[in-house]
């Protein structure tokens, strides 16, 4: 896939700084998100925004690899799932299943295992490109979720693992809704900034160069496979963080969380929001979560409530057919036409 000419080509230092600088609109949104608990109820806070952040982080890992690396990896949910499962199984849970190691041992090891898995997937996936990468990562995702379903010794099979909650650290009970919301917000912001920063760095630019023409980059002397695998490692880390947060949010993990359906949901979120910029996956996640939470109530008037999947599918279809850059693409076009009209 080759994305049309990128607006943000080679970033000069000034632009790089601006990318991370705190301009007024960004501050406004951040402030809004920070103050959110003051004027929403617990349900909206955790089930809408909290879930958006968790899914958004995982979708971000897909967006980064696809948008900047040109590699669509449907096994990001698998990496997220490995991290989530390892935290559930290595650390404490309410089922007495697994090893019940303390959190400061379980979490780092879970992250490490997930990132290692992402590297392995990367090593395998980079032997293919384009649509083959999608097919192979989809198959890997299916295989892993199937494995967790069948295996009882490590993954507790069909039932999954219950009662996985964030531990107490820094003296705070992170299971409390507002605290957990801030935890999610913090990691969402961190991964967003990290994605943005890396995309502007030498590595990120090289990656985009490889996306646009691997042969050219190779001729210049870049180690293309190494860059690609490194991209898998970086996004794997993001997905792993998202996976642990999602597991904590749900309080559990089971094969259904990481199956092919979930992988497609993540893809939908990244694409609907806009695959070209890290804010896209969060927008996509918000739309998806709102739809799935409230669609039942709104849709009832027009279409029977069970047809929620149809609504999502049609929406996704329309977006891909007419605005491949997702919501961001639409907003971009509006901005451009506004600019054009105002300068006319």
């Amino acid at each position: 896939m080759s994305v049309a000419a990128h607006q943000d080509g080679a970033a000069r230092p000034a632009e790089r700084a601006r990318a991370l600088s705190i301009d007024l609109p960004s501050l406004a949104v951040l402030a809004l998100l920070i103050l959110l608990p003051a004027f929403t109820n617990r349900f909206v806070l955790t089930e809408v925004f909290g879930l958006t952040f968790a899914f958004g982080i995982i979708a971000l890992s897909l967006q980064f690899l696809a948008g900047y690396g040109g590699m669509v990896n449907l096994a990001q949910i698998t990496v997220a799932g490995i991290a989530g499962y390892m935290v559930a199984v290595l650390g404490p849970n309410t089922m007495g299943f697994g090893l019940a190691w303390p959190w400061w041992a379980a979490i780092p090891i879970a992250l490490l295992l997930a990132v290692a898995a992402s590297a392995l997937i990367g090593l395998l996936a980079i032997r293919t490109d384009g649509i083959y990468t999608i097919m192979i990562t989809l198959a890997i995702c299916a295989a892993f979720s199937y494995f967790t379903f069948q295996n009882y010794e490590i993954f507790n099979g069909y039932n999954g693992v219950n009662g996985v909650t964030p531990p107490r650290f820094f003296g705070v009970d992170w299971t409390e809704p507002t605290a957990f919301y801030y935890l999610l917000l913090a990691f969402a912001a961190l991964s967003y900034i990290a994605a943005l920063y890396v995309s502007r760095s030498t590595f990120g630019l090289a990656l985009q160069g490889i996306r646009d023409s691997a042969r050219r980059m190779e001729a210049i002397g870049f180690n293309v496979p190494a860059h690609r695998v490194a991209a898998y490692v970086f996004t794997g880390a993001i997905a792993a963080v998202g996976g642990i947060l999602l597991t904590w949010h749900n309080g559990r993990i089971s094969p259904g969380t990481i199956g092919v359906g979930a992988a497609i949901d993540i893809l939908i979120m990244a694409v609907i929001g806009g695959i070209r910029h890290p804010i896209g996956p969060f927008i996509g996640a918000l739309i998806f979560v709102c739809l799935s939470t409230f669609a039942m109530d709104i849709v009832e008037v027009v279409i029977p409530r069970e047809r929620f999947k149809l609504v999502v599918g049609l929406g996704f279809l329309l977006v891909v057919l007419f605005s491949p850059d997702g919501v961001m693409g639409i907003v971009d076009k509006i901005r451009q036409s506004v600019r054009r009209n105002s300068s006319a």
Partner: protein
Amino acid sequence: MHFTRSYVLPAIAVAAAMLAPPALAQEKTLKVGGLATLEGVFAKNGEDSMRGIDVALKEYKNTAGGYKIELIKASSDAKPETAIRAARKLIEQDGVKILIGPLSGSEGLAMKDFAKTKPEITFINGTSAAQDTTLRDPAPNFFRFWTDGAQWSWGLGEYVVKVKGWKKIAAIAEDYSFPYTLMLGFALDYCGHGGKIVSRSWVPLGTKDYASYIAALPTDVDAIYVALGGGDAIAFLNQYQQAGGKAKLIAGAITVDQSILTSKGKAREALLGTPAAQPIADNDDSPAWKTFAKAYQDAFPPDQRFPTPSLFATGYYIATKAMLEGLNAVKGDLSNNHAAYRQALSKLKLQGPTGEITLDENRQAIAPNYITEVVEGPGGSMINRVIKKTPPISQTLGMDRAKFLAFGPVGRDNPKCN
């Protein structure tokens, strides 16, 4: 530099959230939540569950304990995470005080854990029938007036050994926890009466091609116990017939449910004459069942329901009836985190469509079970004819609790008896 585009949507969402009305506490209305799988493949079962609730509410004219009952429905897609999310919406957004549901086993396990985080809400199980939902580590505010998978098998083993004389069998079942539970109940009974299960084939869920499983089934057995559900059962029966299989069959509850007996095609004919055990029987001629079936039939036009109530309608009906009876018993006293109400529920002697239901110390139902045989019914249909109805059986299957728990959680080899 790109944030300008991103705050529009969150802002709209926030505004919408602020406009969502808080649950207004109207005088003397009680909000009750009904949770079933209304999405996806199990939608039909979920719909029947809701019909069960409606029949119960209609019977009590929507009032109990001095309250007017307001039912709020929510849907899951059989995944535990979705069920918990739906439960959260009912409790935190819609303000229900009592929650009836969920429908499936793994949702029930997750719901039990969730219930422990919501001590102010009373949970009454719908039809989820996993054993550990109440057997191990139960939640004090989670009540199940419905039997679990092991109880569903009770009585069949004895019948097969003593009446049919089949003392040596093979078993084939789906490889996940519910069939393990059915098998546990069946095997404890069957082997306890001297039967032997010489081989067990566990087929991964969703297997389409049974050819090799069928080939590997031993041929020198008296019968084959089959606990496969839905499409797996149909595929198996079809392929079994065509491979020349002629053994007698014994069925787990999921293999003779309505979706299979009414399936289109010849596969179901392999089930004629098959004994089975299940928690309800469509042609039970007891007055209690007949009254309930008639109420169900009268409440909905024929094209919007099944011919007779499914086990989903029955389970949810029983749960709702228990909820209402409990409210009446304490005259609506829900004070003190429902303390008196829960006491009343624990002591309830519920007269349900299948007989009398009481609860044990883990708030799990003690109820009768049916032994049935598949026969041809009117108009080329197939039905489960009742052979006998067992007396109420407890979750520990009549055993001492410690002895029963010592068998361990359900699994592929539990219990060994060959």
